[in-house]
């Protein structure tokens, strides 16, 4: 299965994958709902279309976060070493980043669910 995942790269940027997915998902949900409720004709469909759209976006966002978490887990050596990875070595730096990325993925996962939770309860623009 690890063949399917991209090769490990060494970059600070992978740290932010999950929070960026969270931010984009947040904006898409809120901007989408705002446009839909203010200009219903622009996007078309009824409120349930919007809810389904948000659910689809949410599943996509969660999948991306899970992949980012898997990659982070690999970078962290599958949890073989315990933190703190505090030594000034290349290996510790990598493990530290992997661990931090994993934690951020967890946070982003929960946050994306919270962002999307209203679609379970809200059935109308005005309520």
């Amino acid at each position, binding site marked *: 299965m690890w063949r399917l995942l991209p090769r490990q790269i060494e970059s600070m940027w992978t740290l932010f994958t999950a929070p960026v997915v969270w931010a984009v998902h947040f904006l898409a949900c809120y901007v989408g709902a705002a446009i839909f409720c203010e200009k219903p004709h622009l996007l078309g469909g009824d409120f349930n279309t919007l809810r389904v759209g948000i659910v689809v976006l949410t599943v996509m966002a969660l999948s991306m976060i899970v992949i980012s978490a898997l990659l982070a887990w690999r970078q962290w050596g599958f949890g073989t070493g315990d933190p703190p990875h505090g030594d000034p070595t290349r290996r510790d730096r990598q493990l530290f980043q992997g661990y931090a990325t994993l934690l951020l993925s967890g946070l982003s996962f929960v946050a994306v669910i919270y962002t999307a939770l209203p679609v*379970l*309860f809200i059935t109308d623009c005005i*309520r």
Partner: protein
Amino acid sequence: MAATAPALASCSGVQSTLDPGGAEATQIATLFWVMTAGGFLIWAFVVALSLYASQWKRKSISERGAGRIIFWGGVVFPVTVLTALLAYALWLMPWLRPFGAEEGTGVRVEVVGSQFWWHVVYRRPDGTSVVSANEIRLPVGERVEFSLESADMIHSFWIPSLGGKMDMIPGRTNRLSLLATRPGTYRGQCAEFCGISHAYMAFPAIAMEPADFEAWLEQRSRPSAGVWAPSAGHDLFMREGCGTCHSVDGTEAGGTQPAGIALGRTPAAGIAGPDLSHVGSRLTIGAGLLANDEEALARFIAHSASIKPGSQMPAYPGLSPDELRAIAAWLKGLQ
């Protein structure tokens, strides 16, 4: 005990969310108590835990054990609690705004906020409407939908005993739905700072039995008999031009001063002052500020800004005490 008395006293009365007289307020009060109790339990648990760690525990725990505590106590527990609370609050939301389905059944109430008073129009199902001001009446047991607007700046319409607050925003119509469950006289208050007399922008809110409410509305839909009582007050009212800002049913006082001459601004809603058609029977004068009697009326007319700083009503230093008394008596007669 003495220290808690003010706190306890503030939990009841005409303007308390925690002493609900309506369906929405009951749910908000429940939400408050659930949050408070939950918050207290967690607080007590954390304090007990830190006491345990700092005072009673002798041996230190293993690193593995500490990791487990952090995972369950610092991740799983807060995520579960927050998810439950969020879901509960979200589940509550549609109940607090039950629009749509029952549209057009009962009375709809339009309220326009202005510095520092409330214009109120009751739209009845038969298409007629009744204009009033600075007082809200609603039938117990019937859902009443409010349309909230503003003529100048942001105000907020809030009757804590009946439900949550809703802002009044210029250029927007916000909706609020309230269901009073207990008859009584409550108090509403502007809840968004709107100028120097913001705190004096209030109103009595009266929940009445539906039959009484209908009778009240029916009576309000006709001019007050007091309008035709022979009175110097009526003539003075017309002579002084009070009618350019104030409407009085059954007189030529229309209250729609077109260009807002005296105010130096154009009233957005086409109304410059509170409707006075039945002002004599309102509970208060000056939007919830003074008990409604002739003396208060005379004082308010003479120089409203001395009672209510920044009031948009001009002062009448030229009116003699007798004239003021005559106007006040005529207005008090508009029952």
